[in-house]
């Protein structure tokens, strides 16, 4: 099976996920002032993640001597391909469109948790295909932060009850 992605494309997808996340949080903050402070903080964190992925991509594009992606069986690639497919994790759709169906802060927080879950699932595959030298630790750090976002969103949801 051919390799559908190179490292550059995978990191571009990660950046897109972060851009989508930040856009969703900012639009949601406007619609739901009750939770806007938290949502804007999360948007700022996603901006930071996007920058980290962009910096990693730039660094990787300059290194050709050593393999930056280690995936001999193509398993991680197949997984990332699946996650990037429209029906699993639609990167092309504007997450702001989802806001139209959300009427309460509770619903927006639940949707946000779903987006965070999908990011974690994607980055777990990304981490598997990135060598330690290419920044595995940074991806791990971002996964931990996304996990923390789930905790923060969940706590806010409980506080609203």
């Amino acid at each position, binding site marked *: 099976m051919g390799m559908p992605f190179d490292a550059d494309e995978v990191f571009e997808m990660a950046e897109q996920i972060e851009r989508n996340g930040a856009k969703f949080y900012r639009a949601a903050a406007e619609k739901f002032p009750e939770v806007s402070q938290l949502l804007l903080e999360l948007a700022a964190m996603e901006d930071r993640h996007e920058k980290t992925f962009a910096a990693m991509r730039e660094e990787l594009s300059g290194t050709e001597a050593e393999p930056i992606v280690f995936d001999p069986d193509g398993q991680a690639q*197949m997984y990332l*391909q*699946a996650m990037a497919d429209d029906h699993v994790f639609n990167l092309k759709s504007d997450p702001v469109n989802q806001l139209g169906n959300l009427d309460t802060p509770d619903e927006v927080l639940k949707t946000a948790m779903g987006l965070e*879950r999908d990011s974690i*699932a994607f980055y*777990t595959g990304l981490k598997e295909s990135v060598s330690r030298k290419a920044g595995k630790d940074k991806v791990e750090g971002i996964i931990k932060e996304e*996990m923390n976002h*789930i*905790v923060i969103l969940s706590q806010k949801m409980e506080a609203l009850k």
Partner: protein
Amino acid sequence: MSISLNAIEVFEIAERLERNSVKFYRKAAEALTDENLCAILLSLSEFEKGHEKNYANMRKQISAKEWSIATFDPENEMALYLQKIADSHIFDPEKDPAEQLKDKGTIEDILNFAIESEKNSIIFYLGLKNYVPVPAGKNKVDEIINEEMSHIAELNLRLSALKYIERISI
């Protein structure tokens, strides 16, 4: 904030998630007429059965050596994360997925639901991994996570094939 979840309970939830998946894949296979797809779902159910056994073994080791959460997660970060997931803010491990099959009218619904369940397992096991010392099988958890990722790839291939057939049939 108090954390009520202990390490043993974390593994019990993981075992329950795996049992739920086994049940779901078997029931889904029974409901389908496509032999090829049935075989895939039954093979996935076997994987999940193996995972359940692995988690049960890890739980026993952790219990025997009296490893506590505090040893591996002094700030309680992962405990809180797992607690929130278990509190069913994202998914409810108590819910019988085989029961949820009743609402799934098409093969596409079944595959989509299976993909969502696999994603839920992955994010739970990522947290759980932090509780497992290397001798108790930390690498085994990584293997299980990798297998769940390959299940998503497999399910997605089937979904793509279905969509392709739909497209060319129009």
